[in-house]
């Protein structure tokens, strides 16, 4: 009979609408299961048994990202020594499909290459988030960050991330990738045990202390105090650690509430770090904002002079 199909269809819509409300009220106080509350808002995972429509009130609420989520790479440095894990071996630059990794290998006074990067850039506007760099890095030095809020007003240099912008401490990685971190640590411990069993000469004292100091929560003293001390202990990396100070907060990925390490917020380009000498054009975020403000102000003045009020 004509019309039955339409009526049936409307019935489905009606049921869906009712389901949405039932979902809402059935789970008071929270509309969703598996919610993580953080200072930055709720982290939600879509329930599979919802009957109605599912909505996330972004940005107050956000999705829970799975551990494997990949966005833009980050470079790891050792929490305790401040040393970069990267050895500038260049494998990530070779394997990167769109060729957006640029590495300058460091040299000593005699021009002999040293296994550490003098500069490391990733052109985030070209990066295709494939995670090949993280997969094939033999030193677990580059991993994929979960921070996807990268919007800037300018592509250059805002999205050309330099080493300072890319660097995060290992504890940050450990918090973001708990199971991958555990697995890597297990393999590392095994290797070290094997080495020791083979009766090789014992490891120097400092690196041996590394695994013990790993959990971020176990380090109650503020990071800033720990940092300046590090270069002295590790003469190999004099310049790099100083550049690692990062703005805190803003990152919402499932980091445990008791996490006390640093959290980077790479959404905004940080002002160029003098030690790195990058951000080639020298334009920084604050400068752009200041320029913009100035421009707007002069525009307002002009319009005012013409007798026209402006609403901006």
């Amino acid at each position, binding site marked *: 009979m004509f019309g039955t199909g339409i009526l049936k269809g409307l019935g489905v819509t009606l049921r869906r609408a009712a389901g949405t409300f039932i979902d809402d009220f059935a789970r008071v106080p929270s509309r969703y299961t598996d919610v993580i509350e953080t200072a930055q808002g709720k982290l939600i995972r879509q329930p599979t048994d919802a009957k109605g429509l599912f909505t996330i009130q972004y940005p107050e609420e956000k999705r829970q990202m799975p551990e494997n989520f990949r966005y833009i790479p980050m470079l790891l440095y050792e929490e305790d020594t401040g040393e970069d894990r990267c050895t500038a071996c260049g494998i990530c630059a070779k*394997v990167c499909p769109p060729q957006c990794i640029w590495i300058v290998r460091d040299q000593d006074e005699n021009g002999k290459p040293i296994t550490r990067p003098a500069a490391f850039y990733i052109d985030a506007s070209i990066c295709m988030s494939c995670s090949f760099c993280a997969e094939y890095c033999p030193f677990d030095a580059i991993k994929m960050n979960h921070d996807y809020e990268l919007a800037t007003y300018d592509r250059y240099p805002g999205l050309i991330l330099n080493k300072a912008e890319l660097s995060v401490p290992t504890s940050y990685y450990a918090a973001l990738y708990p199971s991958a971190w555990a697995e890597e640590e297990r393999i590392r411990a095994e290797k070290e045990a094997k080495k020791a069993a083979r009766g090789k000469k014992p490891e120097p004292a400092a690196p041996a202390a590394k695994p013990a100091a790993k959990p971020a929560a176990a380090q109650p003293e503020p990071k800033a105090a720990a940092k300046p001390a590090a270069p002295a202990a590790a003469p190999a990396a004099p310049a790099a650690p100083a550049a690692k100070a990062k703005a805190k907060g803003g990152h919402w990925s499932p980091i445990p509430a008791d996490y006390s390490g640093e959290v980077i917020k790479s959404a905004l380009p940080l002002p160029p770090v003098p030690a790195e000498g990058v951000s080639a054009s020298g334009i920084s975020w604050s400068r752009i904002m200041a320029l913009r403000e100035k421009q707007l102000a002069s525009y307002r003045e002009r319009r005012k002079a013409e007798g026209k009020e402006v609403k901006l």
Partner: protein
Amino acid sequence: MTDAVAEQSLPFANAVPGAVLAADAAGMVVDRKKLIEFALHLRNHAGFDYLSSLTAVDYLGFEGRTAADRFEVVYHLFDTKKGGDGVVLKVRLPENDPQAPSLVRVYPGADLQEREAYDLFGITFTGHPRLRRIFLWDGFHGHPMRKDWKEAYYEEEHKPFGSRWPVGNHKWAEDRVPWGDNVSFPKGWDPATFQPAPPPLPTIHEPPWADENHIATERIIINMGPQHPSTHGVFRMIVALDGETVVGLEPECGYLHRNHEKIGERNTWLGNIPFTDRLDYLSSMSNNLGYVLAVEQLMGDKGKPPERAEYLRVIMAEMTRIANHTWAIGFLLNDLGAFFTPALYNIEERELLLDLFEAAAGSRMMCNYMRFGGVVRDVDEDWLTRARDIIFNRLERKIDEFDTYLTGNEILMARCVGVGYLSAADAIALSACGPQLRGSGVAYDLRRARPYSIYDRFKFDVISDDGCDVYARYKVRLGEIRESIKILKQALDDLPGGPIFNGKPGYVTRVEKGEAYGAVEGPKGELGFYVVSDGSDNPWRYHVRAPSYINLNTLGPMSIGYKIADAIVALGGIDIVLGETDR
């Protein structure tokens, strides 16, 4: 290609005297003067009724090749009734005379593919009725797939580029382009005096009532698209109308063209995997699978994935099919004017599947999940629980809901039944694939016809419907979702433990010299990858047989005689994605 092909090709080798110049496992080299005769024989007497892929290769500088056989046009023919391995024909063309006879009269589906080869390689197909560029604009300088053509932002022949390491001071991409933009012009070319060719006019098919006494209507040509919400992206149809009736239709594409294949030849073998994600971005898992299957044919034992990886591949590919079909159905309804309610209901299910992709592969759409010899990440118990929950408890209920909501809906039926008629014979002749072909009653599904991966282990039906209209295609899609659920249930139940990768993952891929055609039944149809290797780290030739593109062959024949609003429905019924169409 297997040795079976060489054996199989022997019976035909002498059918047309002098046609086959040489034959080996990779195919038969055919004399271009006898090509049409030979193809006719294969089509009429040997059962090879389906021209799947047609492409060209430039062998400039390839070992053992000279200017006399620089170009090669490669045809992959298959049998839609018997299935199985097909035959490969090759026509070699000299550098100074790159001309091949057009196969459009034998296989009308050669139309768009020959135009593509003409556009990108500059090979002329004599006898083609509308041989002109398809992706690039008329004034484009040169033929970019030729090995001696360099893009304006050319850096090096192959990746990795030397400038990135060990001294890689970042250069802004725009600064690396010599002219500050990425277009190169021939010497002496002046934009002020350039006269573009007049816009192409579609061939007009006089309607049967043309000389009858009917109300006078005007003949007009209109451009639908590229900015038109119903074209699923930037796609343009040049439509000739008589009143409201379509009397001619010409698809125009290329707005999203980036020469995926040239990029692919600059890339390393491995580096192409994430690029395949960007073809049909709604079904990246299938794209990955097609590409790795093609390359694995050239990798010997290293390219054999372990059991668990095979199962994971099938699970992901079938989830992709569900995700794609829910999207296709939702957006078909959008094209009908049921704005977004059905689409959102459908996308909801897709969202849950994408969540699974994200947890397994790291990204919702650009999955980049498969590797040569396995998959990249294993799935954990939490993932499997969630997947089982969705597949066993939720999806079927939801598909039933669509069924109630849509299948019997009068509006859907009024707009789809009888619209976009394409007979079975036409569908095969025009190289249609996927639901487009099966909606015409041709039960040709590569998972059955040429089982790849481990599809021979699962029980499922090939859905076809002989309605030959958009409604039939809709029903095929709905049926395929149910079959995919069936396969997923079996695969999730049988999923074995063990490794997910054959050997130790490494970034260098050893690919033997040779060529291979790997195809999968993607959600949109036969997605094929034709790769030629010279034994180096980069593919010599990397060609994508894109189902969305080749299905456009049917758009004109399907729409002519219908109202303009029905042409939109016909296009929605094909389910194109411009990332794949334009490549």
